[in-house]
């Protein structure tokens, strides 16, 4: 009893920091025995099956790059959890935009698109960036133009009835929650304007227009802890 127990200590540390971890998932100790392998975040079984179908093919099988494209494309088509592909996660204007990345671990080549509008095939656009440009990341409408010029379908409306309904409900809820901080108005829709937070709010007098001390004003608007609402709003169906 006088000796420390490493397992117990690790358990205490994990509990303290709210960590969680999975036991290694049955991989081989030596290479080759379990290949090919496909791993994906979340229980996106159809996406993994799509990638598996490519990489398990006869002979040498399909390439890892082609398998990743197949897997991610399947998720885009299925709109996995509403967080992948068109028709989900509207921005403040109600628009859906897409981000994607692909990386070849053999050549260390990367292609990516970000905030891409009007094109639904995000992972294919990323692959086109990787294979047909010397760049790594294209963004916004220029990414859209590139993708369409390389043969992808578009321009396409990426909204869906579900995303529009979600956005309308959010507007009716005074645009809450949102990602703004240190702005006015904090509890309503924009346009927003920056506010200057005094260096020592506690010692500040009355904040103009509100009739509250600055400390009260900030507390009421949740600005003393601006990250609270953000963390509460991140969940299985709203994340990157």
């Amino acid at each position, binding site marked *: 009893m006088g000796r420390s127990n490493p397992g117990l200590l690790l358990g205490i540390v994990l509990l303290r920091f709210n960590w969680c971890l999975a036991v290694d998932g049955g991989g081989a100790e030596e290479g080759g025995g379990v290949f090919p392998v496909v791993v994906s975040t979340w229980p996106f079984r159809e996406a993994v099956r799509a990638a598996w179908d490519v990489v398990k093919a006869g002979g040498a099988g399909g390439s890892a790059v082609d398998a990743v494209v197949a897997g991610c494309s399947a998720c885009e088509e299925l709109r996995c959890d509403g967080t992948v592909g068109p028709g989900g996660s509207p921005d403040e204007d109600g628009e859906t935009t897409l981000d994607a990345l692909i990386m070849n671990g053999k050549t260390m080549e990367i292609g990516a698109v970000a905030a891409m509008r009007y094109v639904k095939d995000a992972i294919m656009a990323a692959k086109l960036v990787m294979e047909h440009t010397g760049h790594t990341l294209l963004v916004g409408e220029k990414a859209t133009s590139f993708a369409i010029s390389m043969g992808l379908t578009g321009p396409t409306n990426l909204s869906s009835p579900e995303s529009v309904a979600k956005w309308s409900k959010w507007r009716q809820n005074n645009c809450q929650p949102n990602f703004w901080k240190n702005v006015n108005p904090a509890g309503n829709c924009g346009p927003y304007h920056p506010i200057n937070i005094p260096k020592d709010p506690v010692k500040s007098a009355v904040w103009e227009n509100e009739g509250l001390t600055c400390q009260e004003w900030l507390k009421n608007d949740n600005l003393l802890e601006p990250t609270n609402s953000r963390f509460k709003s991140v969940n299985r169906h709203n*994340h990157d």
Partner: protein
Amino acid sequence: TISMAVVDKMGHIAVGTSTNGATFKIPGRVGDGPIPGSSAYGDDEVGACGATGDGDIMMRFLPCYQVVESMRLGMEPRDAAVDAISRIARKYPDFVGALFAINKKGVHAGACHGWTFQYSVRNSSMQDVEVITVTP
């Protein structure tokens, strides 16, 4: 978000991510999805990683680059995954995120903070996709 890693029959590795980002984001905002080393990273010589969660926070730490580099230095996937998550949690205790790590031998593991995480695996010893739950 989906973040995926594949090791093909030749032992070559590729990773990818696709997402429509955070709901009600400020127009123009880009999360960690298309950022190399944040949402995904892979190197044939070492292994790969895929991540999910609060991208605005995760992209400040490049957790998947960290995982791969930790494995390059000899860490097992489990330790590398926990280490990368802990680096974020140390600075952002309320952070929500998760990742998986897989080395070039096919050994995989997951780690998360602030939520229950699941990841999916299929290899040649399995009859179908297996879903692994990573519980707090």
